């Protein structure tokens, strides 16, 4: 059911862990399947210099978290923000239809981490997010 790339990222995920002094943290969950993800970023000169994740979820959730961290590393915040769930899925060689929402979780988690980084700069409290899992 999963592409070889998904299985590769699932069995050998990149950038697992947390960053204790992260500049931005995005915590998202899908209430339907119960999966949850936290993404941590370090930012320097508007560029994501380090990124890590923790995920409670299915193989697709783990693989999408892993791949999005490899994609976003080194990107400017503006570019990273533009990573959509389809980009994540494409990069993985496709996901089964019922698993597309898992890539949503990863894309939303990253966006939220960036948003929270910006909020932090403005002295605002961080937000946490719920993703619907619905098609968008």
């Amino acid at each position, binding site marked *: 059911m999963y592409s070889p790339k998904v299985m590769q990222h*699932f*069995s050998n995920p990149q950038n*697992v862990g947390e960053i204790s002094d992260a500049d931005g943290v995005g915590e998202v969950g899908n209430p339907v399947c*119960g999966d*949850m993800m936290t993404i941590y970023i370090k930012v320097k000169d508007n560029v994501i210099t380090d990124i890590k994740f*923790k*995920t*409670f979820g299915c193989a697709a959730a783990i693989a999408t978290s892993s791949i999005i961290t490899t994609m976003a590393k080194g990107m400017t915040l503006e570019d990273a923000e533009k990573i959509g769930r389809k980009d994540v899925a494409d990069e993985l060689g496709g996901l089964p239809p*019922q*698993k597309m929402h898992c890539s949503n979780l990863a894309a939303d988690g990253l966006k939220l981490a960036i948003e929270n980084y910006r909020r932090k700069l403005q002295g605002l409290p961080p937000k946490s997010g719920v993703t619907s899992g619905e098609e968008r």
Partner: protein
Amino acid sequence: MKKVYLDNSATTRVSQEVLDAMLPFFTETYGNPSSLHTMGQEASAAVQKAREQVARAIGADAEEIIFTSCGTEADNLALVGTAYANRKKGNHIITSSIEHPAILRTCEFLEKEGFRVTYLPVDRYGMVSPADVEAAIRPETTLISVMAVNNEIGTIQPVREIGRIAKEHNVYFHSDAVQAVGKVPINVKKDDIDMLSLSGHKIHAPKGVGALYVKKGTRIQALIHGGGQERNMKSGTENVPGIVGLGQACEAAIRDFDKNTAHMKRLRDKLIEGLLKIDRVRLNGHPTIRSPNNVNVSFSFIEGESLVLFLDMSGIEASTGSACSSKNLKASHVLLACGLPPEEAHGSLRLTNCAFNTEDEIDYVLETLPGIVDRLRAMSPLYKEAARTTT
């Protein structure tokens, strides 16, 4: 790599004796049982022998066995067939909330057809209460359908009490015994069962064959019409090799019942004991009143699909109650009905053995699993929070 198959509630391997019994019916005695010539009559005799073998396994008479294509078809025939045939008497059916989809989806279909269905709750061990069954009976109730053994958590239902209640109230009682035959004693006469479904591929016969026992005198309507095979209840040329295989499997299941169930129980208990040593794990289903081959556990903070895939990479084939891979992302309806919170229900793992599994295999699982659990927990954002709150 070692291969350990522990998904026997999904399907079993065909045993050698079943295969040997079936083989001649593919290439030598391949007649149509409806044909008058010798080979046709030989095939017909083989089907009749299988009917007796199946009947003997559940304490029925041979004429009361209808061969079907699978357990699902047997369930559909039992429910839809009696609902339609007894419509004049009433339109109410009682079932449990933890039945197999073959029952639940069929009940939903009947609801659309204007029938009313009561879905009984279960306790935390997945057990239906006979008192609830009795309380749910109304004058218009025609059928009670409660499974004998739950496919996910292995809980054995109080079938005999339910049968007695059904009889007292003059309501038909159907039991889906697909996971029960060969694992728990079941006798349609002693248990007052009017209809019982069973399936070949769960007891070392091939896929594509099942049976429905229908007690003499039960008003039931056919769903498949045609040449009138199986006493008009299931038209279509008989799957002779499959039926022969089912017959042989039933004979073996009864002949070796004590030996096999003792062995399965030993493996099950060894597995449960070993798994419960892992931190934050819970046993789902009843601690003692459970199928000898079923282990179902939930590991907090991790999700079932990931666990099953990692196990598979280590050669261990198991299954999960997490519906993550299906269209419906909700956790197992059985575990939710037992009161598990969704995140726990998503983290469940089902390991079901059979008489062919060995102690060595269980040792291998117990050596392999803790490492996988640790690995997934290290990835889980929930684990750290939990560690924080408990320390």
